[in-house]
Structures are given as C-alpha cells and as structure tokens.
C-alpha cells in the first residue's frame, strides 16, 4: 500500500564558506506518500529551505551534496542534469511555491506574461494548436486556474503588474503558477510565513482543497506546528540538519517521542504556560561534532549522546525516532 512519490534517503549537504565547510544537512530522511501532505518542521536555520532547494536542484553557490538520494517517482533527481530537470521535472512534474510572495515575481513584467510563459515552456504543443490559437488555450487555462485559487477578476489580473497585488493575492498567483502544468508534487517553502494570520488561514484552506481536488502530493515546509496540525498528514521534524522524528502528524503531536519534538511542542504559545522556549541555540553547522546535535540542549542527554549519532529507530507504529533513549527502549523490548 505504500506508494511513495518522493523519498529522501540519507541526504547530506555541505556548503563551503570562508570559515570552513558547514554541514548544513546531515542525514535527512523522509518519505512522502502519494496524495499525502508531508510537513517538514524545524527552527529557523535548521536547513528546511536547503532541503527544498536540494530537491528542485537550485542550490546556493558552494553547496555540495555529499551523499544520499532524492527519489521522485522512482527516479533519483540527483543523477539528473540541469537540462533534464528543466525539461521534465521542474515546473512540469514538481511545482514550487516559494517563500516570500513579495519577492518571487519579476517586477517588470505583467502577471499574465509571467504565467503564460510557464505554460509556453512546458507545454509547447498542448491544445493541438499553433501560434495565437495555442496562446488562447493557454490563456484560458490560466484564467481558469486563477479563478480556482479565488483570484478576483482573473482576466483583469493578467494585465496587472506584481506590485499591484496584495501579499495574499500574490501568493495565490504563485500557487496558480505552481499548478499551471498539473504537477504531481507541489513543494511549498513556508508559503504563509510572510502573510498575516487571516490571509494565512485562507491560503491554508485553499491548499488543502487543492490537494484533495487535484490529487496532489505536497511537501510543506514550515516552522509552525499549528499550521502542520491543520494541513499535514505526516510530519518530519528536523533539527540542525538532521531528521529527528517522523510519522503521522496526529500521533506525533499527541505524544512526541523525541526530546526535541517534545521541547518544540512545549514552546507553542497555545500549550506553554509561560513563554520559555528551549534553552541554548541551534549549533553552528561549522563545528558539528560526531554526536547528536541536540544533545547540548537536551535535558535527557547522556554522555554517549556527545560521542555518536543515534540510530533511527522504527517503532511498531511506523514512527521513526532518532534518539539514544529509544535505542535503549528498543533493546529492552527485544
């Protein structure tokens, strides 16, 4: 029954900086089932956006993928060249909703020009027409999409420039852009972070509806557990570039097993009695030791935590936890 559309296996990525090599991603591991929404959650600077960039192959300069696989529909994306990615994957099979809608559209072109351009690259011979006929078909599709993402007056919207839209409307435009070529997978990189709370809610509702309606799979990156609870079927918690816990959202939120997940949940304003937070800081990826990266901040830390990485333990429920404490539980059980 397990039908994975996207599998990330043991992904390691480092970035060469002036101060040395930063191990930004270290053993990232998750699976997105077809038709599901997977939330990738972590603090700022834990490597969430880098994961997204690794998947779509848009890496910052100096970044190097050390090991691992990114399997999309069974094909390892890391083995594909730029041309193949552009022609078959990006935009076509994988749609991308970037983080900040204020900056993600080219300011000098009309919105319609930018949206139509995507269809023109990826579906050059769609609608069995040529020239103006094809353009009209494309235009019709865009208008239909804009209507679907609840853009008021879609025809007029095509003739306007990005700065004439509000943040929420721009995010709708970007969602329409991501969906333009009917992709199988949509990757959303904190799509609601730059928006205010009411707009955020509308966008989340819209995304949920679109997932059900188009049978999409979605990778949803966020730092907000409240958003995850609302939108995501599965959850993958990242800390400092490492997967620490993953499984069904409801199960993890009800009973987090990893100390970090527990601490993160305890910080949520709805749950925490006082605004405490987790003591300490996310460690710099420049000086990563051999052990568990959360150990310095973990209240359950043992001496062994500083020395070696724990093994990812699969619990009977299917949940994966990356903690020494759970290794012990497992060995006790067996």
């Amino acid at each position, binding site marked *: 029954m397990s039908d994975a559309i996207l599998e990330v296996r043991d992904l390691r990525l480092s970035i060469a900086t002036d101060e040395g090599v930063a191990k930004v991603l270290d053993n990232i591991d998750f699976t997105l089932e077809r038709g599901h929404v997977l939330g990738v959650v972590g603090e700022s600077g834990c490597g969430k956006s880098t994961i997204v960039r690794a998947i779509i192959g848009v890496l910052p300069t100096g970044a190097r993928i050390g090991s691992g696989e990114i399997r999309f529909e069974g094909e390892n994306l890391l083995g594909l060249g730029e041309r193949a990615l552009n022609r078959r994957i*990006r935009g076509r099979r994988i749609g*991308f909703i*970037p983080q900040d809608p204020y900056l993600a559209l*080219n300011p000098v072109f009309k919105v319609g020009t930018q949206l139509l351009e995507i269809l023109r690259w990826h579906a050059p011979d769609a609608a069995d027409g040529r020239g103006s006929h094809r353009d009209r078909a494309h235009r019709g599709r865009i208008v239909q999409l804009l209507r679907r993402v609840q853009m008021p007056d879609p025809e007029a919207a095509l003739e306007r420039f990005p700065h004439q839209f509000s943040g929420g409307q721009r995010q709708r435009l*970007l969602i329409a852009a*991501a969906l333009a070529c009917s992709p199988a997978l949509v990757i959303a990189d904190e799509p609601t972070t730059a928006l205010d709370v009411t707009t955020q809610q509308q966008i989340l509702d819209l995304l949920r509806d679109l997932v059900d309606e188009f049978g999409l799979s979605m990778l949803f990156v966020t730092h907000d557990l409240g958003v995850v609870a609302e939108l995501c079927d599965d959850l993958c918690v990242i800390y400092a570039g490492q997967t620490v816990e993953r499984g069904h959202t409801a199960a993890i939120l009800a009973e987090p097993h990893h100390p970090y997940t527990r601490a993160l949940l305890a910080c949520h304003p709805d749950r925490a009695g006082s605004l405490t937070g987790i003591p300490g800081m996310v460690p710099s990826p420049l000086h990563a030791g051999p052990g568990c990266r959360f150990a310095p901040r973990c209240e359950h830390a043992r001496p062994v935590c500083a020395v070696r990485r724990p093994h990812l333990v699969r619990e009977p429920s299917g949940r994966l936890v990356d903690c020494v404490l759970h290794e012990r539980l497992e060995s006790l059980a067996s």
Partner: protein
Amino acid sequence: MLILQKFARDLPALVGLVIVVTVVTVAIVGPWIAPYPGDVVAAHLLQRLKPPSAAFPFGTDNLGRDLFSRVILGARGALEVALAVVALAGLIGVPLGLVAGYTHGWVSETIMRVTDVFLAIPQLVLALALAQLMTPSLETAMVALALTYWPFFTRLVFAETRRLGTSLFVDALRGIGAGGGRILFAHILPNAMSPVIVRATIGMGFTILVAAVLGFLGMGATPPAPDWGLTISESRNYLPDAWWYSTFPGLAILVTVLGFNLLGDGLRDLVDPRLRRSRR
C-alpha cells in the same frame, strides 16, 4: 503618469531633452534645412573666410563654404557615430556583464579582470592607440571608441546581475524550470535595463566629444566631411582672425554633449532617486 510629472519638474533634464530632440531633428532633416546643402564638397574661393553675416550666419571657411550649413550637416555624422559606438559597446558589454554576473568561477573572473584592464587605461589614450593601429578613418575611430566603451556597460550590468541573480524571483524561476539563458536575457536583462539606458545616454554625449577629439587629431573623419572635430582642426591655421571658423562647430559640440549629459542625469535621477545629485 507620476514619472512624467517628476521629469517635467526637472528643469535641467527638460533642457537636455529639448537639446537632444533638436539635435536629432536637425540630424534627420539637415540636408533639407541647410541653406547650402551642396557645401559639403563645394568650394567658393571668392567667399573664403567671410565673417558671420545675414547670408552666412556662422561665416565661411577657408574654402568659402557656409559654416552654418556644415554645422547642420555635421549633426547627422556625429549622431551616427555616437549611436553606432554606444550600440556596439552595449552589444559587447551587456552580454559579458550578464554572463560574468550570473556565473561564478573562472569565466566570471576572466571577464571582469579583462574589463578592469580596459578601465585602467584612460579611454582617450586607448582609443587613440587603437585608431592609430588601424588605418585612420571614421569607421576605425568608431571601432576604437566601441572597444574602449564596452567595459562601462560590463561593470554596470555585472553589478546589477549579481544583485538580481540572488533575488528570490530568480530562484523561483529556476524552480519552475527556466534555463540559464532564459533567466538571463528574458528576466534579468529587462530588470537591469534602466541603468544601461542612462549609461548609454551619457555615453552618447561622451562619444560625440571623444569622436570630435579623434577627428581633430586626424584619426577620425576625413575631409571633406563636415565633421565638427575635423572642422575645428582645419580652422587652427586661421586663428585668431577667423574666430567664427572654430567657435561655431565648437559650440555645436558643447551644446550637444551638454544636452545628452543633462538628459542622462535627469533619467538617472528618475531611475534611482537614491543617487540624486545635490543640485538644488
């Protein structure tokens, strides 16, 4: 349109625009408005070196040709040279700047270091040297000027591309499958165009000036062309008695260059208000 209102309030820029429009008009309709259009090649030795009068507003030169007509007829050549030089320099400089700004590593480094070398040598000296290497003619002067002006475009476009290349919309474009060429030429270039246009406008004036210098030194236009710089060069032997001979072509150069510079500065103020000069 707000931008037009802003421009209309900028008096020096308006003056520049009026001058540029006038010069361009004169250049286009010159042969029809010049009183003696035949004076490009004609010679009337009986009227040589006549001071300004009603018949010859700017006087006549050593071959008795009407200087007023020759100044008018010279506008077209000056503008043609400036346009060709700036266009050629842009065609070389802009793509190099785009590539250097978007890539990292040895391609980018090579382009920019070569650019630095060109920028390190004074433009006039380099243009003179290049013009001297080839046989002196208007064409070689144009090539020499273009070969010395492209680094300015490269620097400018390089900086803009570096800035835009890291912006989120470029990442978003890559994320939806746009190739490097498409991003560079269809998306980054239009964003970088406004400073390029400003630079080109100022470059027009500058090129007219340097082209006149080359003409003056005998490395540009050749007689009997009504080139402004060449005319001033020919007038040297008749100074100071025939003061009009060098004054009016000189004024033509002055006014034209001033016009382009004022217009270019005004455009720059519109494009980038942060760089506003302390003019008022």
